[in-house]
C-alpha cells in the first residue's frame, strides 16, 4: 500500500493531466458538443470493453506486443555489436557512414512493398519492417556513443592488451550504453508505430491491435475503436517505462542516474 501511495505521489502530475483530459472528454460528450459517432462518451468506451475482450482482444494485444518485442530484440542483437565494431574500426565506418545515413532517410513505410516481395505476406514481413529502422537507429547511436567514449579510459583499457572483442564488449559497450539507450527508446516508438500501421493494411487474416482498430472503425463500432486506440497508447507508455526501468538498472553506476533517485 505504501509503495502504491508513493507511486501516486511520484506520478501526480501525469495523473492530474489524465484526469483533466478525461473530464474534458466527458464534458464534451455530455453537452453533446460533438456527434457521438465522432467522439463517443468515455462510459460507452468502458462499456464496450467486455465485448472487446470477448473478441480475442488479449490475443491481438499479445500478437502486436510480440512483434514489437521481436523486432526490438533483433534490432538490438544486430545493431549494438555491429555499431560498436564499426566504431572501433574507424575505417569501416568512414566507408559506411554515407550509405547508412542515406538508408536512414528513406521512410521505412515506403519500403513495405519491397519487404512483402522479399519476405512474403506474413509475420516475417511485419517484424522485419519494424526491425529495419530500429536496427539503423540503434546502430547509429551505438556508433556515436562509442565515438564519444572517454579517450583516457580507452588508454587504460589498451594497456591491458585486450582483444578486439574484449575491447568492444567489455569497455566500449559500457561507454556507449547511455547513447544506445537513447537509440532503443526511439526504436521502441518506431517499432510500435510500424507494427500497428502494417497490421492495419496487411489484412489477409493477420491479426493484431492495428487490425482490430481498423476492423472496429470500418464497421462503425466507434467506442471499440477508441478503446483499442487507448490500449495502443497504453502499450506505448508501458514499453517506454519498461525501457526506463532497464536503463536505470543497467546504468545504475552512472553518477547522474544515482542523483536522480
Amino acid at each position: 500500500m505504501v509503495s502504491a501511495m508513493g507511486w501516486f505521489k511520484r506520478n501526480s502530475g501525469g495523473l492530474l493531466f489524465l484526469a483533466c483530459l478525461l473530464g474534458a472528454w466527458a464534458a464534451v460528450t455530455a453537452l453533446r458538443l460533438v456527434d457521438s459517432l465522432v467522439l463517443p462518451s468515455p462510459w460507452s468506451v468502458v462499456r464496450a470493453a467486455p465485448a472487446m475482450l470477448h473478441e480475442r482482444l488479449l490475443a491481438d494485444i499479445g500478437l502486436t506486443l510480440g512483434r514489437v518485442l521481436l523486432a526490438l530484440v533483433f534490432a538490438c542483437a544486430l545493431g549494438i555489436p555491429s555499431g560498436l565494431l564499426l566504431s572501433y574500426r574507424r575505417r569501416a565506418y568512414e566507408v559506411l557512414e554515407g550509405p547508412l545515413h542515406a538508408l536512414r532517410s528513406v521512410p521505412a513505410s515506403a519500403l513495405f512493398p519491397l519487404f512483402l516481395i522479399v519476405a512474403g505476406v506474413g509475420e516475417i514481413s511485419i517484424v522485419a519492417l519494424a526491425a529495419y529502422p530500429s536496427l539503423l537507429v540503434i546502430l547509429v547511436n551505438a556508433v556515436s556513443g562509442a565515438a564519444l567514449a572517454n579517450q583516457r579510459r580507452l588508454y587504460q583499457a589498451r594497456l591491458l592488451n585486450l582483444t578486439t572483442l574484449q575491447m568492444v564488449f567489455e569497455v566500449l559497450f559500457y561507454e556507449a550504453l547511455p547513447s544506445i539507450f537513447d537509440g532503443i527508446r526511439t526504436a521502441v516508438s518506431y517499432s510500435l508505430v510500424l507494427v500497428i500501421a502494417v497490421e492495419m493494411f496487411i489484412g489477409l487474416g493477420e491479426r493484431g491491435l492495428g487490425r482490430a482498430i481498423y476492423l472496429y472503425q470500418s464497421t462503425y463500432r466507434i467506442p471499440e475503436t477508441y478503446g483499442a486506440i487507448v490500449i495502443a497508447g497504453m502499450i506505448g507508455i508501458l514499453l517506454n517505462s519498461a525501457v526506463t526501468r532497464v536503463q536505470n538498472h543497467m546504468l545504475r553506476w552512472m553518477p547522474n542516474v544515482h542523483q536522480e533517485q
Partner: protein
Amino acid sequence: MSTPALSTSSALQIEDVDFSYQARSDGIDGPLYKEFSLRIEEGSIVTIMGASGVGKSTLGRIMAGTLTPRRGIVRRSPYFTKPSDVVYVDQHPMNSVFPWQTVIENVRYPLKKLNWEIAARHERICYLLTLFRLSDLADVHPAQLSGGELQRLGLCRCLSWKPKLVILDEPFSALDGRVKAEITSALHELALKDHMTLVLITHNVSDALALGMRCIIVAKRPIRVMADLDFPVGFPRDESTADYDAMQQALINGIRDGLV
C-alpha cells in the same frame, strides 16, 4: 644535478623534445616544449613541480607515450616490454577507473586481463584494498565514492599489476592531510616492494616534499628545468625535523629563482 652512477640505468630518457598543441588560440605563441631533455633513473621517485598551466600533464603524457612529440626522442628502458609496464594515472581519477565496475572489480579486471593466477590475484587484491583503505568499499561503484576515495581507487587500480614506471598526475589533490600521509607511505611501500619508478606531477610544495627523492622544477614557454634538487631524506618524513626544513627551504628557493 648529481651525475648518476654507471650502474643505474635510466627508466626514461627524453632528448631534445619539441611539442606544441595546434589549436591554442589564447594569444600565447611559441611551442610548449623546445629542445627539452630529462633523464629519470630506474627505481627513483621523482617529483616534477611547476605552476598550473605550465604543461606538466603534457610532459606526463609524453613520458607515458600517449602524446608523441613533434621532434626529439623519448627512450624508455628496454625492460619495459609490455604496454602495461608504463602507466599514466590521470589527474581526474574517473578517467583511470571504469565507472561501471565496482571498486573490487576495478582492481580485479586488469589482473584478470593480464593473466594473473587466481591465487596471486586474490592475494594482491586483498593487499591493495587494505593498503589503500578501500576494503569496506569493495562493492561500491566509483560514482558513489568521495573525491579522496576515488583518487585512492585510481592509484590502487593503476598500481595493481605492478607496472614498472608510473606517472602520477596530481595524485594527492583530493586528499586531506592524514589520508595523504597514509597514501604516501602506501606508495612508498609499493615503489620499494615492486621496484617501481615513480614520477609525481604536482604544483603543491608539500606534495612535492612528501615522497620525492629528486625534485625537478619547471617553468614555462618553452618549458625548461629551473632547478633539479636531490632530497636524500629518509622515509617516513617528519615535518618537524631540520632535514625536512632544509629540504623545504631548498625547494622554495628553487621556485623563487625559477619564477623570477
